[in-house]
């Protein structure tokens, strides 16, 4: 397939996944703040940290307050990672490769876009974000479903999956990182009611609570970290994402298992086998924050290699690249 098309399909999926994750963050945080002291601005600050856009937020709005944070994350056009910006970028990418995706996929993205656009012009989504966040998640899942069922599982499909799962792995790692930062000071008090609410929220923001319970039962910090970082079967776990990314890269290159023909494949394979043979006690020993930092850097390297191996138009000077903002 065309390099430009592969590039756009990859970013289309990334942006959709990013929009979905922002909706998850808002949704869970909104639930957390319900029944809490209304003026407690602190409750909304971590959200801006998760998306990594605290600098821009401060510049535009100053202190994180509920409405400003919600607007910033959902509809602010100057925030390149707001839901509206993400879906707009996803749609622009989809539009530039409309012939390469299927008609139902395009229609899903298009409806998704209009749904967010329409919501952005009213106040309902900010007053009661849950309904809006549900719609965003649903629209994203509908697109993933249509992609799975209407597109041949060939090269384009794999690039789409790589985009989606690299983004998801990154977002899960951020949410784990930030929430642990807030939870660690009270880690000694595991089991206290307030704390439990936060742990619950962490699992819920990745839709992981029910699945976690089935695997681990009681909530302990180590088990939650294990589930979200090294989980093999849970689709939002970092390792799950990395495994599928590595599989998709091999499908594209056609390399035999355990071998590599390009840098992307080498880096993805290395990250995967590292996670395959890591226990959560290793992560805790290294320091959770340090481990996640290193993970994010490796993930970025995979993304960079992918760009160099498949998307770059070699005889052309560096064309404008899409952004992958990292804090």
């Amino acid at each position, binding site marked *: 397939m065309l390099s*430009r098309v592969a590039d756009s399909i990859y970013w289309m999926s990334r942006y959709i996944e990013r929009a979905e994750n922002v909706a998850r963050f808002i949704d869970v945080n909104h639930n957390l703040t319900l029944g809490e002291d209304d003026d407690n601005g602190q409750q909304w600050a971590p959200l801006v940290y998760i998306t990594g856009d605290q600098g821009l937020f401060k510049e535009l709005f100053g202190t994180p307050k509920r409405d400003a944070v919600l607007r910033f994350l959902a509809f602010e056009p100057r925030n390149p990672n707001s839901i509206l910006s993400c879906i707009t970028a996803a749609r622009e990418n989809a539009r530039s490769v*409309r012939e390469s995706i299927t008609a139902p996929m395009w*229609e899903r993205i298009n409806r998704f876009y209009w749904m967010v656009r329409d919501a952005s012009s009213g106040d309902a989504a900010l007053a009661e974000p849950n309904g809006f966040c549900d719609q965003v998640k649903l629209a994203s899942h509908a697109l993933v479903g249509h992609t799975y069922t209407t597109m041949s599982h060939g090269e384009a499909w794999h690039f789409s999956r790589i985009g989606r799962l690299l983004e998801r792995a990154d977002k899960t790692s951020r949410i784990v990182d930030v929430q642990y930062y807030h939870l660690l000071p009270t880690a000694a008090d595991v089991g206290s009611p307030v704390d439990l609410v936060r742990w619950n929220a962490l699992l819920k923001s990745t839709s992981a609570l029910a699945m976690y319970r089935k695997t681990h039962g009681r909530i302990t910090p180590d088990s939650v970290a294990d589930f979200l970082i090294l989980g093999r079967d849970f689709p939002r776990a970092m390792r799950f994402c990395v495994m599928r990314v590595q599989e998709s890269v091999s499908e594209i290159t056609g390399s035999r298992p355990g071998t590599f023909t390009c840098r992307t494949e080498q880096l993805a394979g290395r990250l995967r086998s590292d996670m395959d043979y890591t226990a959560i006690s290793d992560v805790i020993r290294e320091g959770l924050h340090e481990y996640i930092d290193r993970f994010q850097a490796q993930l970025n390297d995979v993304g960079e290699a992918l760009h160099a191996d*498949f998307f770059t138009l070699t005889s*052309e000077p560096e064309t404008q690249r899409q952004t992958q903002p990292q804090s």
Partner: protein
Amino acid sequence: MHYQPTGYDESFESTGEPRPACREFLRRLDAVGVSELGRRQKEAELQLRNSGITFNVYGHQAGVEKVWPFDLMPRVIDREEWSQIDAGLRQRVTALNLFIDDVYNDRRIIADGVVPESLLQSSTTYRPELRGFSPTHKAWCHISGVDLVRNRDGRVYVLEDNLRCPSGVSYVLENREMMKRTFSQVFHGVSIASVDEYPEQLLETLLSCAPPAVRDPLAVVLTPGVYNSAYFEHTFLAQQMGVELVQGCDLVVIDDVVHMRTTQGLRRVDVIYRRIDDDFLDPEVFREDSTLGVRGLMRAYRAGNVTLANAPGTGVADDKAVYAYVPEIIRYYLGEDAILHNVPTYLCDDPKQREHVLANLHDLVVKPTNESGGYGIMLGPHATPEERAACGDRIRSDPRNYIAQPMLELSTVPTLVDDDEPPRLEPRHVDLRPFVLAGQDVYVMPGGLTRVALVEGSMVVNSSQGGGSKDTWVMRA
């Protein structure tokens, strides 16, 4: 159903009786009712928005994309009449292809004094770079969209031959799809010629015109990109044919062979359905500042390593001054009388005809010879005295660049009007753009794109200026 035709109406006789081809459809429509029609119309509009069937308007601020305006009331064409039009289109496109090939090669038609040499020398769309070149099967205009109108006299006229990059065919297919999805019951019991074949025929035309040495040719569609007004159509056609939609930056010419850049390296390209104007195709030969085209593309083309559809240089035959000669061109190459009528045309380059035009500006439509899309046209009866005077000055300073024609009154089709009042049907003026494919064989798509001026009394059907479109039914029985 209350409906009052004002001039020649496509669906109703002047007596108010339905025309025979429309009878069955109108009977079914009566059972549905106009208010239900209004509801379906809204449904169709939502559907169009959701599926992102749009066109881009240049210089339009609030979001460049606009949803394609579509009117649910179809335009119906009688079977007998269509077979005449079909034959006329085949004849016309065949003759124009022969004309273009002759003009770039032997120039018999000039030697025989049928067309003056000066006409070509002064044509801005004539490409001297292609002198002595002949494409595969001598096919120059693989895809044409010939604009037809019906005047108040009931006759169908050719308004212009679009032989460069005519657009609109995707909307023909989408309009039919939209009709079937939102208004299925009106199709029961009527037999309508299918338009679904077009993508297959287009692909066949493109592949059959590949350079002869290529065994298993690869075709692509070349687009200027997402901001082009017809971008939707480019994606649509590429998708329907299952070929890649490429931009100039995706292609590279190495040793006079065109390649596209893929994730697995370079891949040879044999046929390019290009939706970029000649001027922008290759900065090496045409406009140097073009970033849309491909450097070296014309070298590859002249070396016979790639087919371009349409061929560069076809514009010479849809120059509006050449248009006036088409009946003679048909007679010269085919020995037949033209089946489709030309609109009487005054060439301002000819002193006598110019005098007539300048004396009758208030009755005439003046058009620049090399523009398309309705740009630069002066409608005499509707213009102010100042506008007419300015037009006269332009004609005097560059007579070759202008032609004039009598003002036609386009026929109407019942169209749903749904403003503040209850929905109702009113006559609105239409034209028709059928699409013709010409490679080894000629294929005429039944019907074509019916464009409608949605503003009461207006004759401007361009979608950028308040025009909409309708499904076009060619009856099979």
